[in-house]
Structures are given as C-alpha cells and as structure tokens.
C-alpha cells in the first residue's frame, strides 16, 4: 500500500488547535508545500515546536505571519521580528529552549524516556521553573519530554513504503521528530520505488512514517 497522498488531503487531517513538530533550521529541511497549504486552509491555534521561525514570509515564518500559531516552542526567534512582535504583544506564547535540550526533549518523547538530564542551562534563566537534580556532584536540569499530534517533516527521498533519507544540513531535527509525532507526514523532494534507497542509507525507517506528500496534488498545484 502506498503512503503517498496529496498535500491538500494531508493538511485537511490537521485540526485547528493541533500540536505540530516541524523539521527545519532556518527553512532548510522545512516542508514548504505543507506550510503553504496550512496557510491556505487557514489553520488556527496551532502549537508549533520547531528550532526557529526563520524570517517573515519564508518557511515556517509564513505560519507566524498568518497567525496560525498560538504557542511556540523554539530555540531561536532572533531572525524573525514578527515572532518577537507577536510575543511582546501577547498574541503568541513563546517558550525558548536551548537547542541541544530541545532536540533531546523531542527524542525523549519519541523513544519512551521520561525526560532529559542536562547540564545546559543550569543557573541561567533557562532553568526557571525547572527542577534540578545532582548526580555524582554535578547539577543537571530536568527537561520534560515533548510529543505532538503531528510531525511534519521534509526529506530528500522517500520510497513508497516511507523510508526516508536527507540532504546535508536539511536533516537537522527531522529524523528525531519522526519518532515523536502521533501522525508523521513527510514531504520528500522525490518519491522513488521501494528498494531504490539502499538499506544502509535509510535514515528514517518506514515504520515511523504514516504519509508522504505526492510531488503534485491532483489539481496540479
């Protein structure tokens, strides 16, 4: 059975208020067609968990522009003045998390661990409201795991069974998020027949992936 569906149908599955893990680092490795379709369908009240919000009008910055997002968990918003404006105006709730802790929280959520103990952030504002534990004389922050209703990923190739590979720095959070979304949708640059991606080159195993976005939707967009 093929997992390929068109982008319109894929985004129709995402209800208002859903939580979304979205791959990408400054829009490299971000599912652009899914983002455009979320904006077109006018989704609202989303919780977005992603590394950064890029720039206005580009990549997931479009979701901020279109006010699709009520709550954001990210490590960096410095490149997007609109994210900061909405945060200061109280329109957007933002939780900033160190990048290494953010990806490990997502990993923990996806692999059945109860959280992460990390030295990063101890004694800084990143520790506010978090518990600290001491192991062998060293302090660690207890960071909570993250899961979401959807993981929306970008990849280089997918085969029709859903095996994924990635390009260079477009890999970033994508293979980690593939474990942590209840429904996982990947937007590949190319869909190839099963067997074309050699087993040793598969980075995200197909069992994690529910849907892959067809190259073109039925109405030609």
């Amino acid at each position, binding site marked *: 059975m093929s997992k390929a569906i068109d982008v319109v149908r894929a985004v129709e599955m995402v209800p208002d208020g859903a939580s979304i893990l979205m791959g990408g*680092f400054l829009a490299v490795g971000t599912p652009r067609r899914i983002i455009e379709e979320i904006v077109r369908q006018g989704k609202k009240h989303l919780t977005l968990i992603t590394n950064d919000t890029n720039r206005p009008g580009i990549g997931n910055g479009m979701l901020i522009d279109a006010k699709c997002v009520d709550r954001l968990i*990210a490590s*960096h918003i410095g490149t997007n003045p609109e994210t900061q404006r909405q945060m200061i105006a109280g329109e957007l709730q933002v939780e900033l998390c160190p*990048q290494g802790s953010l*990806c490990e929280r997502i990993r923990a959520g996806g692999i059945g661990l109860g959280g992460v103990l990390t030295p990063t952030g101890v*004694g800084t504002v990143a520790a506010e409201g978090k518990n600290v534990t001491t192991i062998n004389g060293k302090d660690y922050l207890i960071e909570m795991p993250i899961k979401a209703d959807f993981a929306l990923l970008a990849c280089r190739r997918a085969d029709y069974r859903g095996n994924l590979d990635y390009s260079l*720095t477009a890999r*970033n959070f*994508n293979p980690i998020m593939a474990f942590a979304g209840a429904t996982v949708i990947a937007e590949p640059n190319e869909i190839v027949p099963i067997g074309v991606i050699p087993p040793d080159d598969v980075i995200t195993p197909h069992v994690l992936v529910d849907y892959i976005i067809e190259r073109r939707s039925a109405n030609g967009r």
Partner: protein
Amino acid sequence: MEDKVLIAKRVAQELHDGDLVNLGIGLPTLVANYLPHGIEVYFQSENGVIGMSKVPGKGLEDDYLIDAGGIFVGALPGACSLDSCTSFSLIRGGHLDVTVLGGLQLDEQGQLANWMIPGKMVPGMGGGMDLATGAKRVIVSMNHSAKGVSKIVKKCTLPITSTRRVDLVVTELAVIEPTEKGLVLKETAPGVTIDQILAATEAKLIIPEHVGEMSIPADL
C-alpha cells in the same frame, strides 16, 4: 590592523591540528580565515555538518548546505552530515575541542553573557548555552568595550549563558585568562600598555610579573 582581524588572528593561534571547532555567529566566524599554516581543523556547524568550508565558488551554493547563521557554506571531502541530536551530542558530550563565542559581558568569575538584553533583544539562546557549557575549551572573542563601556565587568548584569568559567578571552586590547583566583592578564595587544588595559576594564585584573605581547605570525 582592524580590531576584529587582530582578534581573529590571535584566536586562530589557539587551534591545533585535528581539532573539532565550532565558531559562533559574527566575529568568531572570521577565525577560519587566519588558520596557522600546516594545521588542519574540522569546523562543525551545529545545524548538522562537520567539515564545513567556504562556498567553493559563485553559483555553487547548495540549497541544503548552510551554517548556523543561515549563510551558504561548502563542505570539504570527508565532511559528514549530522542530525541535531548527534550534533549536540558532540557539543555537550565533550567531543568538541574548541568553541569560539562572541560576548556581551564577561565577569570576574569568567562567566559569559552573550545571548540576551532584557527588554531590548530576546532572540533565544539557540545553541549558545550548549556550546558554552559543553565544549572542552570556550574562547570568547569580542571587543573590549561597547560605546566606551567595558564589557569585562565585575559581575554580569545581563543574563548569563552558562555558569561555566570560560577558558580564554581575546579582545583588541588584551588576552585574558579567567582562573579560580580571577581574571589574569596574559598578553597585551601590540602597542597597548597595561595601564591602558586597566583603564578600559571594569573588572579587577590580576597582573602577573610577566605579561607578554600578542604574537601574530607576519605571514597570516
């Protein structure tokens, strides 16, 4: 010599053959231009590559290859791609030999503030807290003062990046080593006196008997 070039050239002298190195955004990225001759270091960008280089030529940018500042970069033969957890495992796990970070303030305890100005600039810490906490060596490269105000202070008034004591600070005036006892002046910039450095520094500096002058190879 321009201040930032002097700083970059001096920081580059701290790198050793075979080091895995992560350069922060801004001034630290200049360090890659002035590597000592005959050494090979591996540049990591935390968004997922080891073996980063400059873009090999105009028009040869790759849509999927950027550094952590969003700038197109190249990759050398032998480069490798990493997911974010692997990249930060290298950083936090003690596998990163050196990180060079910019700074807003550095204090007598050797603690760095470099990511936030409350009420003015709240960009998020990105990977900075992990780098400042986890790298084997943290080198801060920054101007000694901002608008006439010393950035080397008694106690950071801006939110710190990590409680960890950084290993070395290089400015256009001085090389300073934070130690258990406080900030030790190690070197003066060419043509700069110890008195000038003391006058430009809010923090207390420990002045050892011998203070060297920054040595920059002439052919860099």
